[in-house]
């Protein structure tokens, strides 16, 4: 029994089935992180994507109960060079294969993931699919071409929570934060709660009134999948809430939405940033952070700290790999956002200070007696 990956340009990579058997389609991207496959699998930002891990050996430490970033795997498909047969870790509860099969995730292993990566690097992220070896490629290609491209796609609604829920503060509750769930990773509310915030997580469909009804100390705008241009309503809400002086902190899709809220443009990157080793410079500190990244869209940047179309914003962080905008802040309001993942999980934790910075904004607003 075999399985294969087919790309919309006809390129095919053969392998063996992994996890659930079946046909899946999605956008094929690669991730260069060497650890953290469980967090990758459960990151809702990967909805609609077939994720290839460039690290060849995946599953070595199994899967456990603690490293889930959401309730279930979110990727549309998973591609590895090799999946560990016998994982080893004191925390391991199951093998990767068992986990994927148990959650119905279709995967493929024994693939030359480096060749796949090199192809995507030069041809760009594209639509593709995983199918069992006996599925005729021609028919499968039609199915792949039938799926919509990532541009213009609103996927955040699909992965968002249906109902609001509360993550209580750890220890003394000092602040109340409203959090938009566009596909939030569990680590973000957890890090806020560890800093004394009660977090009320709101569905993607929530509007300004829903947020203001909570009278929050701050608004958190989560990461999530898809094209930010398709989530216009949220941008409006962000602007309205921020106008009242409520501190806003956005991550990833949240960063893009904040940029758009003030007039900035977003665009699709050729193959995105997915990994745990991207250097980002924090202009204010002059310091480099090694960051966890997972995004296919980016905010249009201008000269120096300009954000074209958004005179109220300034660029605070830049990606040192390609100079793309990695963070923006409002010039007068307490609004901050980064394109990458300060909550890490997986990836380096160099940027967790941003959660402290956000909490400082909450404290400053309290102190100002609003």
């Amino acid at each position: 029994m075999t399985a294969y990956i087919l790309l919309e340009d006809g390129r095919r990579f053969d392998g063996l089935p992994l996890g659930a058997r079946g046909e899946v389609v999605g956008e094929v991207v690669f991730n260069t992180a060497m650890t953290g496959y469980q967090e990758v699998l459960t990151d809702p930002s990967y909805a609609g994507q077939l994720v290839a891990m460039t690290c060849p050996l995946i599953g070595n430490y199994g899967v456990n109960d603690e490293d889930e970033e959401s309730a279930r795997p979110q990727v549309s498909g998973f591609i590895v060079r090799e999946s560990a047969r016998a994982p080893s870790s004191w925390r391991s509860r199951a093998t990767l294969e068992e986990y994927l099969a148990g959650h119905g995730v279709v995967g493929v292993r024994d693939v030359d993931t480096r060749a796949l990566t090199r192809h995507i690097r030069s041809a760009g992220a594209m639509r593709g699919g995983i199918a069992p070896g006996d599925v005729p490629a021609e028919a499968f290609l039609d199915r792949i071409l039938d799926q919509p491209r990532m541009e213009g796609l609103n996927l955040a609604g699909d992965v968002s929570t249906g109902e609001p829920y509360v993550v209580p503060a750890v220890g003394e509750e000092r602040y109340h934060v409203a959090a938009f769930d566009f596909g939030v990773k569990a680590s973000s509310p957890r890090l806020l709660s560890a800093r004394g915030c009660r977090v009320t997580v709101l569905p993607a469909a929530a509007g300004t009134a829903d947020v203001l009804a909570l009278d929050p100390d701050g608004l958190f705008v989560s990461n999530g999948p898809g094209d930010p241009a398709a989530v216009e309503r949220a941008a409006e809400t962000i602007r309205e809430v921020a106008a009242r002086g409520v501190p806003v902190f956005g991550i990833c899709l949240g960063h893009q939405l904040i940029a758009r809220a003030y007039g900035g443009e977003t665009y699709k990157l050729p193959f995105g940033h997915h990994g745990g080793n991207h250097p980002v410079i924090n202009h204010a500190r002059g310091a480099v952070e090694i960051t966890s990244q997972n995004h296919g869209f980016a905010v249009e940047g201008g000269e120096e700290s300009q954000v074209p179309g958004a005179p109220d914003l300034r660029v605070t962080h830049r990606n040192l790999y390609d100079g793309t905008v990695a963070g923006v802040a409002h010039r007068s309001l307490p609004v901050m956002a980064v394109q990458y993942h300060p909550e890490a999980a997986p990836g380096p934790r160099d940027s967790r200070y941003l959660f402290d910075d956000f909490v400082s904004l909450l404290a400053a607003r309290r102190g100002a007696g609003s």
Partner: protein
Amino acid sequence: MPKRGDLESILILGSGPIVIGQACEFDYSGTQAVRALKEEGYRVVLVNSNPATIMTDPDLAHRTYIEPLTPEWVTHVIERERPDALLPTMGGQTALNIAMDLDADGSLTKHGVELIGANARSIRMAEDREEFAAAMDRIGLAVPHGGFARNIEDARRIVADTGYPAIVRPSFTLGGTGGGTAYNLAEFETQVRKGLAASRIGEVLIDRGVLGWKEYELEVVRDGADNVIVVCSIENFDPMGVHTGDSVTVAPAQTLSDAEYQTMRDAAIAIIREIGVEAGGCNIQFAVDPANGEMLVVEMNPRVSRSSALASKATGFPIARVGAKLAVGYRLDELPNDITRTTPASFEPALDYVVVKFPRFAFEKFPSEDDTLGVQMKAVGETMAIGRTFRSAWQKGLRGLEVGRPGWVTGESLQDDGLESDSTEALLRALRRPTTARKYQLKRAMEAGVPIELLHRATGIDPWFLDQLSQILETERWYGELPDPGPEDLRRMKREGFSDAQLAALRGEDERAVRERRWAWGVRPTYNVVDTCAGEFPAETPYYYSSYESEDESRSSDRRKIVILGSGPNRIGQGIEFDYCCVQAVLALREAGFETIMVNSNPETVSTDFDVSDKLYFEPLTLEDVAEIVKLEKPEGVIVQLGGQTPLNLAQGLEELGVPVLGTSVDAIDRAEDRRRFERVCRRIGARVPDNGTARSEAEALEVARSVGFPVLVRPSYVLGGRAMEIVYDEESLKDYFARAVRASPDHPVLIDRFLEDAFEADVDALSDGTDVVVGGIMQHIEDAGVHSGDSACVLPPYLLSPAQLDEMRGLTRRFALELNVVGLLNVQYAVKDGQVYVLEVNPRASRTVPFVGKATGVPLARLAARVMAGETLAELGVPSEPPVNGVAVKEAVFPFNRFDVDTLLGPEMRSTGEAMGVDDSFGMAFAKAQVSAGNSLPGARERATKRVIVTVNDADKPTVTPLVRRLADLGFSVWATRGTREYLRELGVACERVYKVGEGRPNIVDRIVSGEAGLLVNTPLGKKSQYDDYAMRRAAIAFRVPYLTTMSATSAAVDALTAIRTRRPEVLSIQERIGRGGAGEPSSDVPSGGPA
């Protein structure tokens, strides 16, 4: 922050001679640092006593001092060069210790020299285990608890807390010297005493023995703006308890989840900040409890290290180069990633392959040494393999280890794998003790069906690794049982990492049949790039490893190209000297316009630095691996004569595959190696050889020995470093030897030569283009014949050879070169006995002395040899014959006797790990410098008042030693002699006192040594076998660092040296000044060029 403008001149210290725990990885690092600082426009001054290094090449630094690496001598260099800064982090523990001493005694302040890269406070905090433990406590990290002891009482108190096993580690030592594991009080006290003696500050750390915990290392780099990156994570296959230098190690870490890895990374960042390494790299070791993930910080090295070299090769991130640039003020984000060239160095490499490093040992050289691996490093080299999976890298690494096994293959007999029986009990018993055979024992145990759980419990090796090995075995069985394997089956096996030789053995075929079928089926390797970024960006640097994937990333160019085969893992007899030759060749051929393609598997080397050659294949040096590269690249030829025996062994196979071997023909090599053919060569050119014969059986051997007469020198043919070479005095010993020697080299017969007693030897290095021959240098050995040339001190120019003898050697060398049609290098060993010149050996290849000759004369023989092999003539190149030596150059060997409990008496089997060079205007001073550099510190002025010379020699040496003792007395030394020696000396009117031999009464010689009263020991063995007290005496001398001399010629040289120290002012001179020029390949005009010798 751009680079600092307030510095002009920077001093870099090397690490001196190669010793266990400090090998050529520091040549790699230091060379990178010198180049990095040079390209920034700094004036670089270098001190290193090791002539075999690339870094001491006169073209590299602005001023290169081949002078002893001691605080005193480095101070002389500082006084002369007045550098603005000292970069102490590139030369291992040696450089760090010197920097600390110079800081402590105020020399640095006095001469206005700033420490860059790491400051004294940080170095102290990292190195002093007590301060380190306190620092870790401040940042909330745990260390294996225990304590520090300066005496045995304190130690007992501490071990009462830690319990057993307890680890004893001396403070401030190298590669764990003097450390050990203790399982009971008696062992503990022995370890503590050894450790206190080994420590520079008389302190030991007693650790909780976290044996069996998982062991990790992180390579961390920080810049002056406090940006920190982790370049690489390394997981040890062997758990805690085996020194990391002796462990099989794997990169990246394989069995840590992201949460655990990030916790470790956070800890590493906190550590480098707390210790305050200002700008540069460090290595941090962690232990993790496999049961619950508890993490302890084991240690930190605030400098580049063996692991950082490995990490650099494993990731493509040049830690030393970047570290040097950070030390002069750059920030990480201001430096480019040299592999991608478009992204900055402020990132963490992503690997899409697995790297496995195997240590290489030399226990066969030290048969009486216990081969248990522990906290004190014993490995002499290493090989690294890159594969797409752990299993393929594992197999490739074992192939690259060059121990006669084409992968993960068990030995022919149980004994070969260190086993007495293959019962489960015996296997588990053997596996509990970590040895170099463990990897093969695991396979035997798996073959016997021992469950992984039991193997894990016996070894502590993580079950993930064990399951991977088990999969190799399963695949092997599957293939062995296939009725008729087809192309896809073969491809699967190759993808799993099996070599053709392994596959052949699995199905009872020969390797050639497998290869031919594989080629016919088009099953060929692909080459992937080590690109630092897992394919995310295009890489500019062609650094490749083989795989059997779907896409080949290596493109063969249309340029004229030459493949240079490296020397593989370092071992005794084949080390850095050959890497030096290979790098020289690469540089010369690049200069001549060729595309150079390097193949090597040794991560410690300069030759495997990603930008030395045009293309680098990090691959094992086996026929299969090399043939595939050649088949892809189609070079004009392959150079096999510069990398020692490793590539030479491939020459014939390559030729049979139709690969052009450049330079001296394979047949000529055979004519020199094959004893019978060599005899004929000698007869034709009229060279005298000691009476000899060849034996293929014990009976034949006895016959030959009787006819040539005892003593005889016996050895297997085709060996390196005098492997299994012995002087045999009678038939009994010959019988005993013969059984062992045949095992040493089963395919080749044993050579038996009459041993020339009391002869002395000379080594000639020459270069020929097939028409002309030039002599590079004639080196005279200082030790008597019978000591392996690699172990003997030698001097250039010679002082004991007559002009007629020198002429005879020149003539013979020339005739050998022409008779063998040598194109390239040639080394001839001569012996002179009773005025007659004998030929001992002719090696038509680079010799160990090529770099020494190059440094002494300034003529880069290896570079020139490469050009000659590529087709140029000596006349075209203008090579001078016998370039003059300005002054006298002495080479001294360095031995691992402080680590191995074996007799130190030198013999025909090479046992030295490295060499040091002393150069000065007089022989005495040059020899003195060489001794100091080799760590044989001769008693100085201070010791003369308090320490005595002990003399105990055999009857034959008594007349020779008498004038020497007289001279020692004149120098102000008091002399102690044993009874016979004393009587002899007193009769001749030399004043000396009696000292007891062991067993004659006490205090005896050993007591005198132990109590620190002896400053020098002269002891020649009594007859053919060393007596017990000789042995005890020499061991004591090693342990208490008393210089000891075992031959009269060495004693004479030492007396010259002591005289020089007494009467001359110490002076240092850079080799650039000494050889009177800067660039290589530019002979000075007053030297006759070209022409025969």
